[in-house]
């Protein structure tokens, strides 16, 4: 069975919109590294305000919809990913530290397990994998910083993450809609529109324009 590595952002968006029940319907295995499990279950369980959210995600792990993979090499690999990502751009004498934690472990798990697809809703990890030039332009535009790109690191990162397929929870939901899995909410186009906006408002990095593109494509 094909596998998809998930980071915490995508699972949180889906959980917040009560669509974790869709995960077994996709016919693939959704896997997470231990750090992502700590981020979505262990830590929020300690705060009463987020306990029920954590319980929902914990249930998805218990019922096998999400599999936690323990791989002793992941933490070490993740440190290397973080080192590369955080030495990619320099402002003055400072390296701009852009990546951390579960995001890096998700990428590391992909490498260690030979998995090609990453499910991630937050924006920076996706840009780091798919378009480091766009990431640089984004940061420069937002901060006014003039960043220097380390070409050697950029080359190493390309070797590390080039060829990774990145999808978001929005792509999963669009596929679910097209394949009739959302019919319990009705068959009209508003189901797609509403569900994509639900994910967007839960933090998925999809723009208004992209949602309208999905509407033209599928509805």
């Amino acid at each position, binding site marked *: 069975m*094909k596998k*998809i590595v998930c980071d*915490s*952002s995508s699972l*949180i968006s889906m959980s*917040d919109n009560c669509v974790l029940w869709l995960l077994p319907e*996709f*016919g*693939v295995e959704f896997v997470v590294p231990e750090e992502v499990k700590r*981020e979505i279950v262990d*830590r*929020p369980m300690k705060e009463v*305000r*987020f306990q029920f959210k954590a319980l929902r995600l914990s249930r998805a792990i218990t019922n096998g919809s999400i599999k936690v993979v323990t791989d002793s090499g992941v933490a070490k690999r993740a440190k290397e990913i973080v080192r590369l990502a955080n030495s990619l751009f320099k*402002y003055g004498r400072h390296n*701009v*530290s*852009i*990546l*951390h*934690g*579960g*995001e*890096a472990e998700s990428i590391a798990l992909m490498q260690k397990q030979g998995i090609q697809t990453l499910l991630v809703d*937050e*924006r*920076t*990890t996706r*840009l780091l994998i*798919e*378009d480091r030039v*766009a*990431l640089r332009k*984004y*940061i420069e*535009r*937002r*901060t006014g*910083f003039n960043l220097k790109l380390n070409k050697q690191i950029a080359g190493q990162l390309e070797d590390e993450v080039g060829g990774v*397929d*990145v*999808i978001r929870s929005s*792509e*999963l939901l669009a*596929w679910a809609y*097209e*394949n009739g899995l959302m019919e319990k909410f009705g068959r009209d186009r508003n189901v797609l529109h509403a569900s994509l906006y639900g994910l*967007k*408002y*839960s*933090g*998925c*990095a*999809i*723009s*208004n324009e*992209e949602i309208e*593109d*999905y509407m033209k*494509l599928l509805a």
Partner: protein
Amino acid sequence: MKMLEKLRKAFKAKNLTALKRISNQAIERAALTEDPEMVNISLIAYALYKLLSKPHVLESEQWEAFVKDVDADLAEGMALQEKGEAVGGLLEKDIINDINKIDASLGNYVQDVIKKARMKQASRIYAMGLSLDKAIALTGADRFQLMSYIGATVIHERPFTRTKSVVDRYQTTKKILGEKK
């Protein structure tokens, strides 16, 4: 003028605009330098800005004593900085503690003002281009809360956030999941 000095001056003058500006400048600097003291200065400036904007807080019995305590702590912090000493402990154990105390007794919300500050400033770091995990690591913001907050902003409408067309990304998805059932 150093950040703590600016903060003390703005707080004394009840200058809300300056406090917000200091908070934002401090967090932007913290994003670059990963300096935890700068993060705390940002949180304190934001929290003081919020407290100063609440009439019921300014009119409370505790307010005068709070202002004296915070001013004294900021002065102490400035003196420590002059000597080249760290101020992290003072910021966290004294000032943030004082803010939490007055907020707990007078605040109207379940979420305290420092937590709100963590979330706002984490959002600011994410808006700068750093990752969600990085923003959380720097500020201590709650992950679930931060994602909802970011979702309600225009951060994901900005230029250079779109790396592939929807058609291409959906094609990739169908390649992985298979064509229509």
